[in-house]
């Protein structure tokens, strides 16, 4: 049961990652790509949670947490670059 659910879960998240990546490629503008990257980060969290369940290991938590943190920082950095060029001023 759980196996099947996980399998479906992996499949859906994989498709999600694939679609996000397609958007990243298509753009067409920089914000679209930043958004797609941000989404990829969040998709990755989903993927890691599934992996944690699949391997029954709690060790994926930190990675997921860190992806959340770092994805955010990356996104605001890139956005601020578009806004101001100078991201630390």
């Amino acid at each position, binding site marked *: 049961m759980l196996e099947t659910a996980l399998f479906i879960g992996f499949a859906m998240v994989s498709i999600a990652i694939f679609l996000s990546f397609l958007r*990243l490629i298509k753009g067409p503008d920089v914000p679209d790509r930043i958004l797609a990257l941000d989404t990829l980060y969040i998709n990755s969290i989903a993927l890691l949670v599934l992996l944690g369940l699949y391997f029954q290991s709690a060790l994926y938590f930190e990675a997921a947490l860190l992806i959340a943190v770092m994805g955010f920082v990356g996104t605001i950095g890139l956005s601020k670059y578009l806004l101001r060029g100078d991201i*630390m001023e």
Partner: protein
Amino acid sequence: MTAITLLSFNLPIAALLPFVGAIFAAWAANINRLASAWVAAFVTILALAFLAPSMAMVFAGETLIQSWTWMPVIGLEFAFRFDGLALLFSLLILVIGLLVIIYARYYLSKKDSMGRFFAYLLMFMGSMLGIVLSENLIQMVVFWELTSLTSFLLISYWQHRQDARAGARMALVITGGGGLALLAGVLLLGHVVGSYNLTDVLSAGELIRGHDLYFPILVLILLGVFTKSAQFPFHFWLPHAMAAPTPVSAYLHSATMVKAGIFLLARFFPVLSGTPEWTWLVGGAGLITFLLGAYFALFQHDIKGLLAYSTISHLGLITLLFGFGTQLAAVAAIFHIINHATFKASLFMVAGIIDHETGTRDMRRINGLLKYMPHTAVLAMIAAAAMAGVPLLNGFLSKEMFFDQALTASGSSVWAWAIPILVVLAAVFSVAYSLRFIHDVFFNGDPINLPKTPHEPPRFMKIPVDLLVIICLAVGMIPMFTVAPILAVAVAGTLQTTPPEYSLAIWHGFNLPLLMSFIALVLGVLVYTMRKRLFEWHESGMAHWDARIIFNAVLGVIGAFANRVTRSFDKGSLQNATVWVLVTALLAGFIGFTTVSAPLFGDRELLPVDGVSVLAIAILMVASVLTVAWHRKRLIALVMLGVVGLIISLMFVKFSAPDLALTQLSVEIVTVILLLLALYFLPQTTPKETSDLRVSRDIVIALLSGVGVTLLAMAVLTRDFAPISEFFLLNSVPGGGGTNVVNVILVDFRGTDTLGEIAVLALAGLGIFAMLQGMKLHAPAQDSVGRIWNSDLHPEIMQTLTRLLLPLMLMIAIYIFLRGHNLPGGGFIAGLIAAVALIVQYLSNGIAWTNDRLKFDMHWVIGFGLLIATATGLVAMGLGYPFMTTAFTYLNWPVVGKFEVASAIAFDLGVFLVVVGATVMSLVELGKLSDQSHQAQPSLNGSTQSTSALKSQQETN
């Protein structure tokens, strides 16, 4: 053990004394102008005095050897030898040296630095003594090259003169280069004989002549000889060396340095001579030189030029004698060495007097000096007559012996008739130029337009000439009572056997040599009388033929070649350099692999593939290809790079490496922020400027690299191996006190790596700090498409909520830090998280605001981090254990319960601090750059330039 007497160490003293004297001579110039000359003369006499006691031994037929170990690994000894040959040359060097010193003291003008001159001269004298006194051949080469160096200094003594500089350099290159050939020859010789000591070499003639290496050895040594002794085709440096002050010419270019080559011929005569190769090479070079020198001497207008070519000719004569290879020829050669030294040194001195007194050396202007300086004229005439081989003078005796040898030594050859004829021809020219020297200078009407009115020089300037001319006469008239004993020991020293029978009588009856002398004298006079026509003929053709032109052309070609090769390889292009490195690496891997015959892949079982991995890795590959494809749009390339980094972190998670994933994630973001900070100051796009050819080349290199690395990875991954890692897994808990083996490796098993790594980070931070000091760049006021930046510096919502994140992220950092020893995490990752937490504050609140609230100087954070990390290691040292030995224990406190305390944690704290300090320092300093740049904008000139550069950049895009 022999008792230490003067005779056990006098030779090196004599050879080194002039070098010490040189220092004193240079220093003495501070006292008064003449003190240097006195020092030089004193040193010369002292050296003679040191040698004197050993002379008796030599006359008694003994050879004195004094040696000390120096570099035993290659058989280099500090070894000296005093035999007849050395004795003869030492006397030449010292006696003529002394006369030259006396002469030079009067010759040099007030403008010339006496200290420098005599210091150089003494150094040269020491070098010459070194050559002739050396027992060890390498040591001899040392002194040999020293004569090249010191002669460079002496020839270029008047360094303001172009011809002096050029002449000195030419002499250095030719003789120094020959010295290098000599070195090669000596090395081979030593290799063949098994020793560099002359005693051994001289007794191994048979072995050497029979060896495969005989011919290369001979050629290399002869290169040394011919260059030094100005033999064809290396003769041309000598006339150009005449730019030297005349005492130098008298000393170096008549009596000593040019004789060093001859000395070497004599030295190796017993070892190398007696083969057809020797005869052809030595004899051939000697004969050509003899002729060539005599011919050109006649047509020189410069007195010293005439003497220089005459010297070349006489050196050729001596060489030819050695080339004959007979013992009697060697006797004649040595005899002529002595004679040439005396008459030629005196002639040079005369030339110097004339130059000194008339202000010119051009014989077309100098005429009829007999009436102005009769005494000098007489001396000159005697010496010149000796040079011409006029009877009753020393030159005549050795020339007779020479003619005799020319007739007998070549007796068996097919060319037997040629040699005597050519020899006489050369002698004819010798007579002619000697006659010209006398007639053109001292007679031949009145001087033309001389700068000075000539008169006799100071008395002491003539005394050396007087003495030399007296020797010419004495040897010429009573050879048995003057030169005979020295000649005898010199010959014995040269031949290393009992010398052959020879006679030094003035009169040998009417014989063929006498006839040859007579023909030479008569025809010589005849040639001189026909000089007008000969000069015209010469000027129309031969005069333009100068080896110097070839020399300079060769140098020019070499120089141009050097330039072309250097600039076409070292283009100053980074791309070029990188291509070389990459291509070499590819080749190295390939060549290395194919060195042995081994299969590329092993047969280890491979892991199965799953869909998620395929997708992730496909994305990774596409993203990295797109990073390249879109690299011209820099921001987008950066976003693609972000994808690559993210997928790599996920891979690390997947393949059971959570620590790596965490590190990769944090580093990735910090890198992106860093690149964003930098990108602000850089063009937003990359122009298309490389040619298609270059692009295709790079693509090929890139593909080959990719294929190479893939194959290398597969080659390893398909093999089994037995790593040392089991030790870490087994000892991590009992030995390191942590269950996270990766962290225990980092802080304990391989803590030194980590120490180095934080040093790298610290250096990066400090280096960036140092680089950014005072740096100002153009801060663009608009983005790449010309939009003015958004006016909202710190969007409120971001500001408010990210402040909330700071404590949260610090909490996470501490959490990651503390668990690191047992679970994924540790000082690095924690440090990066903490750094990111701070950087986020800078991003959303600005530098000024954040710095106000964060009162740490990051220098201190880095410094304390290193301090703590190192101190942890040092504590162990204090307890008698090696650096970095860790300890841990479990404490059980009330309420809190049982917990672990490990010194590795303290180390990790150091790591944490350095990571935080260095990361924040790097990024914040970079962030400050814009502030500096904004402030600097209006006033700075450079910024307008860089603005225009930027504009042109954008136009190209």
